[in-house]
């Protein structure tokens, strides 16, 4: 039984001695994490601790300096470039800075995820509408991102992340711009995905979110794990 097969069985994400350097400074240092399928994980730590960097490595926005990351049985430093899109389709990402396409409407931004994986137009329309209802943004379906408030943009970003029913959700500060009530709704949404079998990984500095929730907490500080 090969190493990768063994990991596949119990862990969906596994990091071995992961380092990420920017210039001569370590943003992440010797990170070893194993996340099981259908886990609900918080990554926490002060500003600049390396939370976002950790997530970026997983969805391949940044490259590893050293170490190995295995996601769903695939070693991502050895993945063929043309396979990357297919890996990403299994992943839903809420970016800290939302990363909405400013020239596209809310509908177009979200439907993009479904178009990419080749869904039918009729399905896309229905699905986008229903997910926007869930995040309370159905009225803004034809707005452009710059015509939305900060919290509204964040909710669109959440909707886009979950619309494709991903196997893993990476959420980077998913409620930073939201008031308590809306934030709770978004957390409920993430939990409902968790209940359906999705692995959810949330990077946040908001202790309130963590305390009022369930799940494992990994604490980072200066790029190192201080609590797991």
């Amino acid at each position: 039984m090969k190493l990768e097969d063994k990991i596949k069985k119990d862990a969906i994400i596994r990091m071995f001695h992961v380092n990420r350097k920017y210039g001569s400074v370590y943003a992440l240092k010797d990170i070893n994490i194993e996340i099981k399928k259908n886990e609900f994980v918080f990554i926490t730590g002060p500003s600049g601790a390396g939370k976002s960097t950790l997530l970026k490595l997983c969805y391949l926005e940044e490259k590893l300096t050293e170490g190995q990351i295995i996601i769903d049985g695939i070693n991502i430093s050895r993945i063929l470039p043309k396979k990357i899109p297919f890996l990403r389709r299994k992943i839903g990402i809420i970016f800290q800075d939302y990363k909405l396409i400013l020239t596209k409407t809310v509908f177009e931004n979200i439907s993009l995820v479904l178009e990419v994986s080749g869904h039918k137009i009729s399905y896309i329309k229905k699905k986008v509408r229903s997910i926007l209802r869930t995040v309370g943004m159905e009225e803004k379906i034809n707005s452009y991102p710059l015509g939305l408030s900060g919290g509204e943009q964040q909710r669109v970003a959440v909707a886009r992340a979950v619309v494709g029913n991903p196997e893993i959700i990476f959420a980077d500060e998913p409620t930073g711009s939201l008031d308590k009530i809306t934030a709770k709704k978004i957390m409920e949404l993430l939990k409902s995905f968790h209940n359906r079998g999705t692995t959810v990984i949330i990077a946040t500095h908001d202790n309130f979110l963590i305390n009022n929730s369930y799940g494992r907490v990994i604490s980072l500080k200066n790029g190192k794990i201080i609590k797991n």
Partner: protein
Amino acid sequence: MILLINRAITDILNNKFLYIVSIFTITISIFIVSMFTLFFVNTNKIMDSWEKGIKIMAYLKSDKNIEENRKKILNLYGVKEIKFISKKNALNLLKKQMKRQSSLFTNIESNPLPDAFEIKMINFAKNHKKIDVLASQIESLPFIDDVEYGEKWIVKYINIFNLFKFTGYGICVVFFITSIFIVVNTIKLIFYSRKEELKIMRLVGATDNFIKNPFYISGVFQGFIGGILGILILFIIYLMVLTNVDKEFILDFINVRFLSFYEYIILILCSIFSGWFGCYIALKKI
């Protein structure tokens, strides 16, 4: 496929300004290239008509075997056409040419002019060295007394033709390349201002083809529209010039013509190509 074209269209609508700039650039480029083509097509006709005038006069010894001799010359490489001019015709021609001075000839009884062949050459041979060679070949024939071919005059004109032709072709090629460069640049700039968008598309799982295909479609579209507009503008200017300029002024000399259907197609294909190629270059590094 429908979805793809759909995406290309919304893409164009969402980025109107960028597409307008790019179409505008292609329009200008095609306008310049086609203006030059037009200029060149028309001046080329003038040059052709000059070239037709280049000929070698071969003066014959008093040998009456004209048909046989003509064949001998025709066998030489580069000769296209031979016209026999008898001494009598030559004198008449001379009289006609010199209207005023023709009074000189009224008292002449015997005609001192020789018989001659007027020799036209194939295009390929219309080069000053090749004419030299051909002329000396003809001169060395036993039945030829002397050869005359405008010498300096002809060399001068051939050189003008060639100077015009080569710089003309050169400028055309340079234009085409530079206009492609400019289109490529414009499209690159457009990509630059949209690179964030493309990065986001990657991050939500779009494949290369998914991202690139609409760009190619809109690139071809931009090229097509730009090409049509460019030719249209040229045509409008052409009409304006033609109606305002004194018509005899140009028309009694040459028939200034617009582009042929064939040339249209070529230009529009070039334009489409440059749109496509601009995308290709701009997308290569993304």
